[in-house]
């Protein structure tokens, strides 16, 4: 076979500026002269200079210190009372109850703790129960629930999610509500009595609704809708969680606070972030302008002790607290703000000195091109 050479230029597909085979005015390959392509986009080029950094530090310092003081003062004005009723000590009133632990005991164990408030609690008082060393944030615990079931889905009611194992079924019946969270629902009953100086114990009215988020109560948690209006009929074919003494439709008599939308259940199902936590239990509403919600004096906390925590060295607490715009009592943020503000101010001064020492020198130093 014979072959003669072909033009090297065409071989390489290179036209060296000459128009293509048929083209008369081949398009120039000159790049576009746009600001973007030439990397000349208009831009602001801030640099950290003394003129910007130092005022920033002073201003932050000046802003943070008042905020911190405000937070601190607010936090200090909040009244809070906390008692531990776990019953660890022999002397503690609930010691006996804490020792005899059985899920199935039909006779509830009760104990009462007496305490006194030195200062009256104004406005609404919030009553919390607190647990310590309780890992509600454990991964397997957190996911052991079926949101679909809690949302009232009938299929999930009868066939709960696998995540609920091993609290999914009992004796062949699906558990409602399923999962480890629901199974370990806090079931102590706390009652509060005011010891009138004349010797009578006046029960204090504890409001048990309004303690859960609106979205939880109305969106996330819904009772399944069955044929009848009776909740027990809807939950027919399901069983109660292993550790529960009642069925879910027996949690309360009020139909708006029964079943899945029982607020105690909802609050419990909103798992805590840390192993020491508190959950809202009841609200003590202000009665009138004349008297404080909880006047100074002696009180008795009556506990129906059902919830065992001694086995894992947990603690149970009851907390009474008023709240402010910033929430509950916590001096941490206030102190932190004051500290950061002061450090900023101090740093501002230090940087100012350093700037005076070095800044002028490096400013004048010229750079050889």
């Amino acid at each position: 076979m014979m072959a003669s050479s072909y033009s090297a230029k065409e071989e390489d597909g290179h036209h060296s500026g000459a128009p293509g085979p048929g083209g008369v005015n081949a398009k120039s390959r000159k790049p576009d002269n746009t600001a973007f392509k030439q990397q000349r986009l208009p831009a602001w080029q801030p640099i950290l200079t003394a003129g910007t950094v130092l005022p920033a530090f002073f201003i932050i310092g000046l802003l943070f210190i008042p905020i911190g003081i405000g937070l601190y003062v607010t936090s200090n004005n909040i009244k809070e009372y906390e008692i531990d009723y776990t019953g660890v000590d022999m002397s503690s009133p609930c010691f006996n109850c804490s020792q005899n632990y059985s899920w199935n005991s039909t006779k509830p164990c009760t104990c009462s703790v007496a305490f006194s408030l030195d200062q009256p609690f104004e406005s609404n008082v919030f009553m919390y129960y607190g647990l310590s060393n309780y890992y509600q944030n454990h991964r397997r615990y957190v996911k052991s629930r079926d949101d679909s079931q809690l949302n009232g889905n009938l299929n999930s009611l009868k066939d709960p999610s696998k995540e609920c194992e091993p609290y999914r079924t009992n004796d062949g019946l699906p558990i409602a509500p399923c999962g480890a969270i629901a199974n370990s629902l806090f079931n102590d009953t706390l009652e509060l009595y005011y010891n009138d100086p004349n010797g009578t114990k006046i029960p204090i009215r504890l409001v048990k609704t309004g303690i859960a988020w609106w979205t939880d109560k109305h969106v996330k948690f819904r009772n399944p809708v069955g044929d009848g209006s009776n909740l027990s009929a809807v939950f027919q074919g399901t069983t109660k969680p292993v550790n529960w003494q009642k069925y879910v439709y027996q949690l309360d008599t009020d139909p708006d606070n029964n079943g899945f939308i029982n607020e105690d259940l909802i609050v419990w199902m909103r798992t805590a972030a840390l192993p020491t936590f508190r959950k809202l239990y009841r609200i003590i509403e202000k009665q009138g302008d004349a008297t404080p919600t909880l006047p100074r004096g002696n009180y008795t906390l009556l506990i129906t002790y059902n919830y065992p925590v001694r086995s894992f060295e947990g603690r149970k607490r009851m907390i009474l607290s008023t709240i402010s715009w910033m929430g509950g009592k916590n001096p941490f943020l206030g102190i932190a703000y004051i500290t950061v503000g002061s450090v900023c101010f101090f740093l501002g001064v230090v940087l100012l000195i350093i700037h005076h020492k070095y800044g002028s020198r490096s400013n004048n130093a010229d750079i050889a091109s």
Partner: protein
Amino acid sequence: MKFSFNIFLSFFRFKESKWMNIHVGDVIRLKKNDFIPADILLLSSSNPNSLCYVETAELDGETNLKFKMGLKVTDEKLQEESQLASFDALIECEEPNNRLDKFTGVMKWKDEFYPLDLDNMLLRGCKIRNTDECHGLVIFAGSDTKIMRNGGKTRFKRTKIDELMNYMVYTIFVLLFLVSAGLAIGNSFWYEEIGKRAWYLSDGLQQSASYRGFLSFWGYIIVLNTMVPISLYVSVEVIRLGQSKFINWDLQMYYPEKDTPAKARTTTLNEQLGQIEYIFTDKTGTLTQNIMAFKKCTIGGQIYGDSVGPLKNSRPVDFSWNKYADGKFQFFDHSLISHIQSKNDLEVFEFFKLLSLCHTVMVDQNDKDLVYQAASPDEGALVTAARNFGFVFLSRTQDTITVSEMGSVATYQMLALLDFNSDRKRMSIILRFPNGKIRLYCKGADTVIYERLHPSSQNKETTQTALETFANETLRTLCLCYKDISNEEYETWSKKHKAASISMSNREEALDEVSELIEKNLVLIGATAIEDKLQDGVPETIAKLAKADIKIWVLTGDKKETAENIGYSCDLLTDDMKIHYGDDVNVKLQNRQADNIGTDGRQGKAKEPFFPEPGKNALIITGGWLNEILYEKKKKRRRLRLRKLRKKTSSNNSMDGQLMNEMEKEQRQKDFVDMACECSAVICCRVTPKQKANVVSLVKKYKKAITLSIGDGANDVNMIKTADIGVGISGQEGMQAVMSSDYAFAQFRYLQRLLLVHGRWSYIRMCKFLRYFFFKNFAFTLVHFWYSFFSGYSAQIAYENWFITLYNVCYSSLPVLLVGLLDQDVSDKLSVRFPKLYLPGQKGLLFNYKNFFTSLFHGIFTSMIIFFIPYGAFLQTMGQDGEAPSDYQSFAVVTASSLIFIVNLQISLETSYWTFVNCFAVLGSIAIYFGIMFDIHSAGIHVIFTSAFTFTGVASNALRQPYLWLTIILTMAISLLPVICVEFLYKTIWPSEGDKIQRNKKKYEKEEEEVRKPTAFQRGRRSRRSAYAFSHSQGYADLIASGRSIRRKPVRKPIPESIREVPQAENI
């Protein structure tokens, strides 16, 4: 093994075909100016005796033409197409190899054997010149060709940062495993202590604590895997692609004359451009334009030609009176032409007469236009100059030269032609004038000419001064002289010459000796000065790059003199440098080696410099010396010498000889590189493509430096492939270099912008990007780590699942990507103006393990703040409406929000070039975060996908509490203020070059706008060096003398066998 093949013919006509279709055994026809597509055995050509001229600049960088010859038998019998079609021969030859200077083979045709050597071969990469047509037989095609064999392996190139990045990812993996293992152990202990007694956690499975720990280990591997930046690789590639596009789009690297924009052919190496330490550059076509121009001359002590380049206002001399004048020739000194036209200055006449007579140029008459075919562009330039000034070389035969002298045609009889070679550095021609007078014309290097001048020769001093001036302007000089010879003197010499030319042994030396006899007592006429035109802006570019501490080595296949001359003209070499040549270097290296062997071969003691004397040094070394020095291909001699050495030193050296050899070779290479790096300029000349690549890899190996090679020809391919970054000069005819390069542009001067602007920006951007990227992933992921201490080491995540999924994609990637694409600390103008800004890149200061660990600690610090501030604020408190915000979901939202604010503000701090896109990206990221969060926390989505979106209402419930906002603000303040403080301190106390320039940016930019006066690159000092550099090896003297190249010969004489050996085309 031998390759043998038959010629395969099936068709009887030539047809056009593509290179890819060329096979071994094809007979192909090449036309003038074609690139040779394969290694071809030259069969016949349209020139007499099947002579074929080739330009080998692509192959070896030499600018002179070489000639190749077909075998006598093929020349005679294979001229016609039909003859070629019936050509059947068996060729046995060497197997494919990379030796460009060697070829052996045998052709068996019609029962006769013909030896083949390199003179019969047309090598791929060369170009056919001055030959209308030639026919050849393909011996090696494709990748078997010698030039391709020289090309070296195509490596997969990676950047240093890539490597570093990989190691860092390994480090992160190790860290991930360690942390996971630690937490898994924690989980085991926790289970033993608390977990197994917590009835509420009971899962009904009888698993031991250690097994649970093991499961938790894998759980943490999954949870913490975001620490390993998977998306980093994708993002890095995106950024590099962007940088490459910016290079392609750069108008300032666009060469309008050839319509060639710069092209980044790879998109993976950009940031490496900001770290170059060594540049290896080719000379021909890269530094120079490969155009010679007759710039100046001195005749009889009088200098003609302008002092400083062609000024804008001066108009070139009008040569229209001369019908032979070449339109492209320009000369700006009008006095010379008036001298000629006045016809009263005999020396000027003599000068141009010499130029028109004493050369080996051949002439073609195309349409009444003279076309000169010169062996070198230098010689072409000289003859063209003479032609324009009225001394037109018209034609030559075997022994006559016809010229037109100011219109009158005269024919001279050529008695002898004593050609150039690298030792003689001169050529002479002995002519019998029409009036019977015999005269010798000689041109050559000033050094050799001055030795041979007649003591009474005039103008020696003035010419010497002129030569110095020329040398200062880095023009290439040649001295011209003549000598009248009496008939008797000629006769006696002629006999000796004849005797020498037929002597059997050492003919070359004998001829040289005879030439010496006649070339003496010369009379000086003057000197010429030729400019080897540099590409625009080469000296400025080299000066700038040198200021950026980039070392530039010139590696060229061209000759020492030309390379040295270019070294001077592009300011690589300066007069205050001490230049060391090969022998000097070899001695020094041998001394060093002897020292080492004296100390038992150990190199423990600190290296003293090779050049203890103060002052700058330069190295000029040829390929031959390079082989010698580096023990390449000198195995036998080396072994011999080694034996001697070993005997001399010690007999108890029990080391294995081979090992010793290797060690010694390595030591020698290391010494050589060390020595070369002490020099401020290194020029390697007459090096093969392979050697070029070797030099590059030596530097890479022993200096661990990042190298860049730039070249334009096929001979640079290997070097371009070997270096970390290869740059090809595009817009020229050959595409070999461009095809194997990583970046291509049209002019050497664009290198400055590529490195100092694009490279630097790319490096800074990439480093900023990587530092931030690692930081942002650490800050993000390690919150899980802190949280695990409070969640029973159960691999519980600290954020919502969806947030983890979207964090790297939507919430944090765009701003940093834009920084990686657009950030500029200083403008391009200032980058070029202050080459010192390039230094941090070379030292790798902006991204290394130190930066990595800084990022790591910064990330750890930030994640701690993000976790512990909410921790402190939340633990025991409750919300505004009495509901505890200490629930897991609110906590997750607060940490996530803090994180988003912190990482986006952090990138804002790092952004030094705020365009509207950056603003948009930062604000957009935050907005998208809140937008998406409120959506997936909405009631509607929970109703539709109940199990997938379980954070219903968290965002609205949590974020309406001022307390949580105060927490977020505090988190931001604590994590960002220290950064600002530290950065400010660094900028105040230890400002970097870049910081200073940034600070004074306004001032510099104002200066930049003022018109800067052009800087003339003129050396003030006078030099005493010879500026002789003729890119001309042995010319065509033999051809001319033998008459083989002369057309239209009456009789085609059989060529004596002896002559064929003479024209050694000097291939490297």
